[in-house]
């Protein structure tokens, strides 16, 4: 293999694998926490490095002539395919619409890639497709291109979906994680951890009685109203999906080199979700959300954003849950209900139900 003549070996021209600690991919590499971040930073950024990617936002910002476009992609591997309050079809449309919305963009077109497992009931596929159609229509965004592949039975979980989308960013809107600055307020548009607990409630082996429904929903209209109310006062938007509120805020704190302090008693939560998390030993701050949006806005515009969010059907239970501080850059802390302070770390591995 070695190029003897010039003393250059094959190994020297090939990059060493940057994630050498893990010989195999683990579930936690897709969990939205520290291992996902490690994969992104050490492997993907290393390989694909470019200015648009390096921002590490929910989507890339591209300038085309005078227009600014947001471009985003997301894949959906949820099990079961149909769950209380939604299904993989509507989820896949909302996911990409929301990634675009978190860039401050109005979605203009989506693509859909379907990976189907041999033997999937055609009836199920039709339900998924109809659900996608309904979700896209409700948002007002067309699905303009797509692709279909089929894999052998046993090689997929029924349906895997990838959606990508492009959106237009209005002039004057500048949303990016690095824009969080000391004094800013942290808002959320409603109760956390609903989606994750609703999904877990129907998984095999973890069934418990609950009336919970996923809160999967499109956020583009809420974002439009918030931008209308506060314009440049809106600094960062982020939908805290995998890894939950804690991981999303840790990413922002790291990216902007600021600290974030949360007030536990201000974080909205449903009683049922709290109960389920208490029983299972899960920290709701790390449970996945859909239809939820973290908003980091200037101190002056916080009240206006809160009013605008609460006036919208997607933000009736919005709250100011914390603030951005100069102290402890890169770290999120929380003032507990009993007044003690603690660190809110990034999710490590998967959240696993505890023993007792």
């Amino acid at each position, binding site marked *: 293999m070695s190029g003897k003549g010039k003393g250059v070996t094959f190994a020297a021209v090939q990059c060493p694998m940057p994630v050498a600690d893990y010989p195999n991919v683990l*579930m936690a590499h897709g969990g939205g926490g520290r291992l996902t971040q490690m994969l992104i930073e050490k492997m993907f950024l290393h390989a694909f490095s470019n200015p648009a990617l390096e921002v590490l936002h929910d989507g890339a910002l591209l300038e085309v002539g005078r227009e600014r476009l947001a471009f985003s992609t997301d894949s959906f591997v949820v099990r079961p395919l149909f769950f209380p309050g939604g299904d993989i079809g509507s989820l896949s449309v909302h996911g990409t619409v929301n990634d675009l919305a978190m860039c401050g963009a109005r979605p203009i077109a989506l693509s859909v890639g379907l990976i189907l497992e041999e033997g999937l009931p055609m009836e199920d596929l039709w339900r998924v497709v109809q659900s996608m159609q309904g979700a896209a229509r409700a948002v007002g965004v067309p699905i303009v291109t797509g692709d279909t592949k089929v894999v052998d039975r046993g090689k997929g979980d029924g349906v895997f979906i990838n959606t990508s989308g492009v959106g237009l960013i209005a002039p004057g809107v500048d949303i990016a994680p690095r824009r969080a600055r000391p004094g800013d307020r942290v808002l959320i548009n409603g109760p956390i951890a609903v989606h994750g607990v609703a999904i877990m409630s129907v998984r095999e082996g973890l069934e418990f009685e609950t009336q919970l429904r996923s809160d999967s929903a499109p956020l583009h209209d809420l974002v439009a109203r918030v931008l209308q109310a506060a314009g440049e006062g809106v600094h960062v938007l982020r939908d805290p999906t995998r890894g939950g509120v804690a991981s999303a805020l840790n990413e922002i704190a790291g990216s902007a080199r600021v600290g974030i302090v949360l007030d536990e008693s201000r974080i909205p939560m449903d009683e049922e979700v709290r109960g389920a998390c208490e029983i299972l030993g899960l920290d709701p701050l790390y449970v996945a959300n859909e239809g939820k949006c973290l908003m980091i806005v200037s101190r002056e515009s916080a009240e206006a954003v809160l009013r605008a969010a609460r006036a919208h059907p997607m933000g009736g239970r919005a709250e100011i849950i914390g603030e951005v501080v100069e102290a402890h850059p890169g770290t999120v802390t929380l003032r507990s*209900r*009993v007044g003690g*302070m603690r660190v809110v770390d990034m999710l490590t591995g998967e959240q696993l*139900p505890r023993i007792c």
Partner: protein
Amino acid sequence: MKFIDEYRDEVATGTFIRAIHALVTRPWTIMEICGGQTNTLMKFGIDRLLPDAVTMVHGPGCPVCVTPLELIDRAVAIARRPGVLFTSFGDMLRVPGSESDLLTVKARGGDVRICYSPLDAVKLARIHPESEVVFFAVGFETTAPANAMAVWQAARLGLGNFSILTSHVLVPPAIEAILTSPDNRVQGFVAPGHVCAVMGFREYEPIALRHGVPMVVTGFEPLDLLQGIYMTLLALEGGRFGVENQYARAVTRDGNMAARDLVERVFEVCDRPWRGIGMIPGSGYRLRPEFAAFDAEKRFEVADVTACESSLCIAGDIMKGRKKPRQCPAFGSLCTPERPIGAPMVSSEGACAAYYHYARTG
């Protein structure tokens, strides 16, 4: 939320914190036995609200932490076998064995699943007669009744494809081991509420008398813990010893008789090695001979798998209250929740993980 919010009330907790500050006249070292209590202490920032004179040290009551390394290796060896459906409580999956852990076995194609209850594993054995379903039955007296019930049900159903890999441990012999250790510095105990909900606290009384220490059976919410610490300090300051019960809403002196009865029918007391601590006589449960058919160690012939601990890990010193996680040279550098060397870095109930997640800075 009822039964939660009243125990996290800032006014009530504030009253206890002030009372503790007013009470303490000299330094005291108290051990909270249970990992769930350690977690509450760190998660609510209670450790930072206590007077400097009060040192809380963290006990061995984390089931994930004390499960011996060779048991993890045996679990890995069983889970790797074709035809085995290996089930476990969630937080055992990440615990490092000598070479591998259960999550890695899963990533490499093993059928490893999380069960919230051992009875769900029995259910899996019924609907998968083609698989050997094994449940990793670890924990203290708290989980013993459910594990006993799983074996009891499997026996009643005549399930030939169900077995458990047992590593049950018992709290009182561990407390005895800590108190008789020559370098012990623990002066009072916050005793484990859930263990006592099952077992009662009669067996703690002779230990408290013999060693002249106060023990307060305590719950897991912030207000429980603060009251338990307050009661322990009140006894220490007053020179009293013996067992008191803070967790009266869940614990009686005799415990849950139905649960204890079932545990006694299925399990018998045996010597057990504790990870990081070593062999403690009479400190565990194993299946009684009449239930030997449900013993995974016998069924899969893994009893001869042995292992040896990393020399870097000071888990034993931490669980005996001799050292704090930050005193470990590997803490946060060589040993992190992603790449744990020792088990206390894995579980939410492990002292090292609690320090790493909740108190790394400031």
